[in-house]
């Protein structure tokens, strides 16, 4: 009897404690987002585009075997939530159905993209360019970073007077030495290998040149010294042993 009451009581306290813990845990929020409720997010999207993709206006339970080519995986496209969206180039929300999106920061998933001067030196956050939730794919028709309006909507916020030419600056540079850069940014690729060969060639040649030179000079100096020392005791017998003074 007693032990049962004890058990019940402890379960009660544990439940209360669990509820208390919920208060202590931080609220779940989309990555780095200032506006957190889903209602606001929906409004944001409505205000920002006023345009709905097909899959956005589909009913919750979709008809099986109906797919959107290029957007939904054809094999088992039950709902946009569970559908694995492979091509994210044209989405209003690039992170639609990306798992654990809300709990992480941008850099945790896009580590490479953090290696750019705006982030590392200018202390600019991702959102200052990519905007609030939802973050559109770059090529989405209404994305602020779409090349047709990038200069006006994003770059000129900070670079006053920037035009379309300025906006062709590649913020997230590809790795200049990588082979695929030859296709995506050929001039960077060739410039990189040109400079690489120049640096390695110049330094390689002259470091070797200097090392051998210093080594050989020291060697000659040592040998002369060792030859001169016995001379002090015995009379000089080998005049031709005198090495030319090498510099």
């Amino acid at each position, binding site marked *: 009897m007693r032990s049962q009451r004890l058990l019940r009581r402890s379960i009660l306290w544990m439940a209360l404690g669990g509820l208390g813990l919920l208060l202590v845990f931080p609220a779940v929020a989309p990555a780095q987002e200032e506006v957190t409720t889903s209602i606001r997010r929906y409004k944001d999207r409505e205000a920002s585009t006023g345009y709905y993709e097909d899959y956005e206006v589909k009913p919750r339970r979709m008809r099986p075997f109906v797919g959107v080519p290029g957007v939904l995986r054809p094999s088992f496209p039950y709902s946009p939530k569970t559908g694995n969206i492979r091509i994210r180039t044209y989405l209003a929300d690039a992170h639609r159905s990306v798992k654990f999106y809300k709990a992480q920061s941008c850099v945790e998933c896009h580590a490479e993209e953090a290696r750019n001067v705006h982030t*590392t030196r200018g202390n600019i956050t991702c959102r200052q360019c990519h905007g609030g939730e939802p973050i559109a794919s770059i090529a989405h028709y209404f994305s602020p970073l779409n090349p047709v309006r990038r200069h006006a909507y994003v770059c000129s916020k900070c670079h006053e007077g920037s035009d379309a030419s*300025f906006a062709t600056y590649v913020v997230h540079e590809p790795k200049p030495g990588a082979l695929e850069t030859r296709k995506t940014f050929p001039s960077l690729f060739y410039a990189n290998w040109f400079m690489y060969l120049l640096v390695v060639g*110049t330094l390689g040649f002259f470091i070797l040149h*200097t090392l*051998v030179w210093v080594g050989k000079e020291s060697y000659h100096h040592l040998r002369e010294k060792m030859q001169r020392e016995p001379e002090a005791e015995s009379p000089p017998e080998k005049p031709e042993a005198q090495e030319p003074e090498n510099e």
Partner: protein
Amino acid sequence: MNDQVRIVRFSIFDRLFHVGIMVTFLTQAVTGMGRLLYSTAWGKGVVNLFGGYEGATTVHNTVGILMIVGFVIHIAYVLAKVEWKSWHRSLFDADSLVPRWADAVHLGQKIRWFVGLGPPPAFDRWTYWEKFDYWAVFWGMPLLGVTGLLLMYPLVTSYFLPGWVLNVLVLFHRAEALLAMLYIFIIHFTIGHFRRGMFPMNECMFAGSVELEEEAKEKPLWIARLQEEGRLEEVMVAGPPHWYRVMYFIFGYTALLTGLYLLFTMIVYRNFIEWH
């Protein structure tokens, strides 16, 4: 020092240009490295010496413009020194820094000497590595100056060049700067300070003169030529005064240690140095 026979090697202008480029180059190296390594604690510390990232950038840009001005003055000076009436002789004789066929021959002889197949080459006034030192800086300056100027005003640049050119310019600027620093801090310093007989310091670029006896061994053809032309007496000078030697030793060693410290930092932080 004062009882030696000394002959002139560098004019006061040559030496001023050298001191000028030492100061500006090291300033650019320090501010540039601070900016390059800004994501590390070292970079932040260095940049803070100049009042933060913007401060270091301002110093870097200002000193960069100073260097461009100095380079233009240098070109004017060089052009004024050429005797245009006999320009061919003036440009291509042994007193000129213009590369000659003999330099290639000397390099070949030097390599032969390295592998023990012959005597070392006999040099005239300028050796091939001294000429390389000069021309490397001569081409590095416009490359860094032009790319730097274009990057200083990226918006203006994008009005007459496509914006993606800026990515390529950054790469050129960084790679060339890294090359220049590594070359100076490793090779130029070794030749100027740490070669046998040079340690602790090859003073000729500060004193302006060299010891005749030593130079007859280093550059026999030059001395022979001076004797032949009967100009040896003409170029003899007194050695540098003591106070001046003390000054340039302090100055030179400050520069040397700064450079070696930067070299050390580059090695320690090599993984943070981004090429592009």
